[in-house]
């Protein structure tokens, strides 16, 4: 279509053209950001249905450090709806952080730790640790992959 044959652009068409471009940029950007980023477990917008990541079997354990020095295990199932636990076990960072911060609201808690251990379908093991200092609010995260021999 040449410039002569193309109809004159109206303000409506300018709006729709911007809508189309923004829509497509977003759709390309979201999956690409997954492949360029480090969060391999967060596959939400990457169209990775039934990926190898989903086959990874993970389990999480948490514990709380009381001010007096006591350490107590934190049963996730008693404090969260089961769908959130599934997301924690999939290393969804935002969910882990928010849950740990929530636990810190308890007066006697000094520190919260959460560890998720994952086993991939190829036999590789990975360990993911979060440590939250309730006073400073600092969260440290450490990921370690142990390749199977």
């Amino acid at each position: 279509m040449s410039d002569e044959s193309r109809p004159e652009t109206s303000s409506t068409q300018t709006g729709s053209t911007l809508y189309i471009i923004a829509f497509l940029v977003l759709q390309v950007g979201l999956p690409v950001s997954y492949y360029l980023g480090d969060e391999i477990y967060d596959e939400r917008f990457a169209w990775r249905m039934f990926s190898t990541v989903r086959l990874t079997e993970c389990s999480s354990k948490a514990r709380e450090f009381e001010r007096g020095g006591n350490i107590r295990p934190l049963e996730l199932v008693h404090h969260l709806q089961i769908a959130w636990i599934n997301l924690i076990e999939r290393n969804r960072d935002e969910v882990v952080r928010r849950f740990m911060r929530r636990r810190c609201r308890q007066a006697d808690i000094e520190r919260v730790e959460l560890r998720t251990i994952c086993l991939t379908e190829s036999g590789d093991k990975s360990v993911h640790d979060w440590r939250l200092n309730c006073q400073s609010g600092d969260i440290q995260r450490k990921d370690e992959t142990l390749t199977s021999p």
Partner: protein
Amino acid sequence: MTRLTDAFWSYFYGPVSRVRVTWLIRILALVFAFDVWFNMLEHGWRYGAEGFNVAHIGWLTQLQPVPDASWYVMLVGIASLTAFGVAVGHFGRGCLGVVAATFSYSWLMSMLDSYQHHYLLSLLLACGVGMPVMAFGADSPEDDAAGEDADDVAFDAIEAWGYPLMCATLTLVYGFAAFAKMEPGWRTGAVLTELFGGESIWMRDLWMGLGGGEASFWWGVGLSAVVTQLFLALVYGLAPVAERRGGKGWHLLRTAGLVAAIGFHASVEILEFNIQWFSYYMLAVALISLGPLAPLRWLDWGFARLRETLLTPIREQLASLEATVVVGFVSGLGVMIALIQLDLPGTTSLAILSSLAVTGTALVSSARGQYATGLRVAVVGMLAGLCAWGSVTYDETRFDFYRYTGGDLQRRLPGAGTTEERRRMLEQALHAYRKAERYSPPDESRRDDIQTIQQKLEILDDSSP
């Protein structure tokens, strides 16, 4: 640059078939409405537990209050009823914008809904905003004065940039999905073996009966999934071009795409991937987008005839201020009763809101002398309410909703910090199980759960000072 701009312009603003766009939007909206009533409403029980929530977008978590079950039910309820209006009642694209916005927010507000196909559905609905929702055609495909072929886009060409945008969206979705399956786990068939290894699947059993190995079967399935998805990405991307250019080659490409899409999504259903209604959406989109135009035109014409024969005489008889007001009030009352009967958190508010919307639109339309619009909104509104009630009742949505609520509260009981909190949770669980019992199928009574909770509450009462 000019060439690129021209290509963009011609792709998105070139002619598309009215009948394809009309049916695509209507069917998508209709399947969505029933998907909400059959599948999504029961998920509402998960929202608000322990006051914990994380939204898909970080700032949304900070900005919004913690969504609860009633809020979720309200949002998807509004989206589904409006979608039904778009599908059946010829509601405009503004209403489709409401559907896209409310539904998208319903899953964006919480990671509890992380279904990828809900994201896809939002994208498809957002594309719909660029497609005019048009009435069924009145001209018979046989009576075309210009002598256009009923399978030619020129027969009823309109401009609807939403349709090419939907095709481009599907290209990206299938393309990225295929790319994800190029990882070693899929290439070797390990993922599929892990997913279905122990299950009895007739296709695999047949293959093994013919002497093939299990590993080679899953390797073949994995490879064919990648090839099919890449092919579908190509076909959808070229679909608007193929339709405009016509010709045997393009026609063959669309037909091959249709066969591939049906084969792929039917296989997904046969293999029981448990992805709710995702396959049905994709099959509907494939049939309407890639299928031949002529059958769609006949269907469209048939519906137009049906409307003229059955509805037009009634509408003409009722086309008066008094009749529209009466129908508006009766429909408003009807939709309120039907939605209150859903008996889920938030459904009373939804019922009042819907009733006001239906009656209000009927009254405003009749005051403006637009009796046909008023009657249409009133009747379609009531029909939507009845369909919602029928679906929820048929599908045991309420039973599932309340038994899951009760089960979750029981599971979290040891986490209760105080006796008061424990009592509150037990009372909520008891209320949920009593509701579940009311809607339980004959062999799934929740009487035992009710008794157990009652005993726990009695013990709590006895131990209280």
